[in-house]
């Protein structure tokens, strides 16, 4: 068994990268993810980790370097936050298209303007359709575990896709919590060495990312489409084996909290789900039948599981910690995708969106209380007056 330490999400992530024995790391500073890189730089300098540590000249270069390194057969690590994540946008699709399991940590940060360093899921969610595996850690322990899980899932020969392991900036990245750090032996058992179907080789050269003609587009897109579908099976397997080896059991796609006889639930991902749970617990103590459904994997979206789970409740409030200006229903990605998953089941389960915690502001317990109150009202009357509410102004 491993040892317990009081560490933040950035250190927990760096510990996981060390345990994964990565070969190539590329960095460029931006709050709040920077701590991961300073921790890794220290590890490399102190001889705790044998890796090439390359300080890039920007996020686009960071991603380009790990693209090449992964193609050469290296296990890679990179990361960013906020506008750094969007600056590298061009490189995400080439990496997944080349089927290279690059690993990227994102500690969320609001997009400019005017330079707010608080956490929002906007930047990471804007990359959600680039065929990368993506999900959120809600605690430092989850940040460590998600890193190991994503290397394992992404490098599986049935998947071979890159991964964004996301954590809420500040809340998860900077607040230290108790983390159990596994043994190297456990990690070795869980994470076999990286081996791709194709790797750059001087004695047998090949081209990755060559220009193609339009008729070659559909078959290549279809290869990727099959891979991310296949990932659903691999994710379930990896989480199961993770529980067996490390003793921490997670539900791979959605985590239910106090939902057994719940009438209304909050549907949420990331750090704010912790607050939602605490509010649900308080309300339970007063006899309110409320619960939380925490989305653990955003990509590939677990459509059927979300459908089966959410359709059990009278009303679902999707909490989006992101801005999606002008989106259908004026909520966010979680609202839209929950509604899509529920489509076709009739009007039994009412859905409403809550946009909150923008700019990195706390979603307070009082706000969750108001959300639950609204959900209970909807469950009682059966009427959804509006698609979504922006907090704190509209609720």
């Amino acid at each position, binding site marked *: 068994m491993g040892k317990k330490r009081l560490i933040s999400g950035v250190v927990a992530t760096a510990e996981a990268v060390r345990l994964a024995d990565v070969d190539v790391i590329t960095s460029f500073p931006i709050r709040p993810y920077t701590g991961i890189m300073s921790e890794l730089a220290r590890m490399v300098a102190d001889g705790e980790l044998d890796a090439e540590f390359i300080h890039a000249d920007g996020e686009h270069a960071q991603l380009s370097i790990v693209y090449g390194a992964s193609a050469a057969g290296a296990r890679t690590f990179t990361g960013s936050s906020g506008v750094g994540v969007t600056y590298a946008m061009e490189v995400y699709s080439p990496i997944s298209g080349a089927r290279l399991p690059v690993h990227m940590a994102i500690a969320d940060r609001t997009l400019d303007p005017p330079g707010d360093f608080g956490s929002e899921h906007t930047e990471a969610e804007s990359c959600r359709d680039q065929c990368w595996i993506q999900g959120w850690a809600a605690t430092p322990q989850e940040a460590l575990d998600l890193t190991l899980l994503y290397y394992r899932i992404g490098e599986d020969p049935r998947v071979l896709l890159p991964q964004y392991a996301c954590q809420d900036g500040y809340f998860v990245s900077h607040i230290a919590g108790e983390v159990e750090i596994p043994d190297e032996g456990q990690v070795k058992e869980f994470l076999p060495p990286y081996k791709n*179907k194709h790797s750059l080789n001087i004695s047998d050269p*090949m*081209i*990755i*990312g060559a220009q193609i003609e339009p*008729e070659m587009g*559909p*078959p290549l897109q*279809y290869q990727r489409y099959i891979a991310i579908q296949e990932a659903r099976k691999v994710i379930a397997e990896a989480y199961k084996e993770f529980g067996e080896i490390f003793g921490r059991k997670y539900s791979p796609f959605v985590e239910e909290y106090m939902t057994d006889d719940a009438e209304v639930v909050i549907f949420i991902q990331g750090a704010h789900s912790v607050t939602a749970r605490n509010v649900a617990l308080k309300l339970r103590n007063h006899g309110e039948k409320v619960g939380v459904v925490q989305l653990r994997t955003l990509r590939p979206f677990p459509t059927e599981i979300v459908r089966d789970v959410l359709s059990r409740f009278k009303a679902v409030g999707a909490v989006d910690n992101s801005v999606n200006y002008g989106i259908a229903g004026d909520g966010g990605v979680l609202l839209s995708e929950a509604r899509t998953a529920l489509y076709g089941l009739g009007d039994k389960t009412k859905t409403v969106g809550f946009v909150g915690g923008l700019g990195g502001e706390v979603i307070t317990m009082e706000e969750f209380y108001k959300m639950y109150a609204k959900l209970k009202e909807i469950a009682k009357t059966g009427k959804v007056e509006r698609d979504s509410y922006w907090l704190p102004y509209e609720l």
Partner: protein
Amino acid sequence: MNLDVKKLFEEPSLIQITTWARGVIENKDARDVVFALANAGSKEGKYVQAWENYVDLPDRVGVPVRAYARISDEPLLSKYVYENEHPDVVVLTNEALVKGNDVLQGMKPGGVLIVNTKRDPEYILKFLKDTTYLGTIGCIDATEVAGHVQTLSGAEGATDASGIGVGVGAVLAGAVVKAKSIVKPENVLSSVQNEEACRYGYDEVRLVTVNTTFPEFKPAPKKPLGPEDLPFAGTVPSVDKENEKRITGNWRSERPVWSKERCTNCLLCWVNCPDSVVVYKTPEAADFTNLKYCKGCGICAEVCPTKAITMVPELDFED
């Protein structure tokens, strides 16, 4: 629904015109043919469109490139396509294009082929593999009267500021309407800059009937590539192996011919050939037999100090 899809989307009055040309040096001529005919059709109230092939590599000198027109009495159903799959008329701005290019592919029964050449139609026919559906062949020496206009104006979908039908294209457009009454000749004349050249094409094209009866036209439907037809993640094997999918010998209008007597074995041709066509086989001599990738650029002849290499029109060779 249980409709006959093939019948449902038939376009009986649609005429497809395809021009083949050499990249960069003849792009404009290819465009001129299709735009002159489409503009003439427009004047007659027909439904028209004209465009250049988007997948060909138009910025490579000598590469086979295509331009297309569609002219119909009915509104065009199949507007957004890459190619004319079943041309009624095929025009070649360069005679050597009959080699290494299946220029008659998909041609409708009774189709027309117009070639810019000094040679006789009978000689050109020798190079065409399958002439089952070819109705008429016409030859005209357009270069003799008009010359090629080399400009990038009008490339990549932009407006052609140099004017439509200045050179070879005007001659060939005239020849097309002589061979097949797609649009009225006077409307083609008024659609080109060089009326005289256009009139010359109409008057002087030598037309020969190839077939008058045709077997039933049953084109096989195009099968899309499947995910198993491409390598994992679209990787391409080593560049130092021969790429069978990018054979460039059909870019060639002139062939380098080597004289053993004049050659001093200096190997400057071997050094300078951009496509590794000159193979250094023995210490005695370079070998010009690997013409599969020779684009006919003529650099070898240019650098040869003893004039041991001469460039000869490709169609002088019947192989």
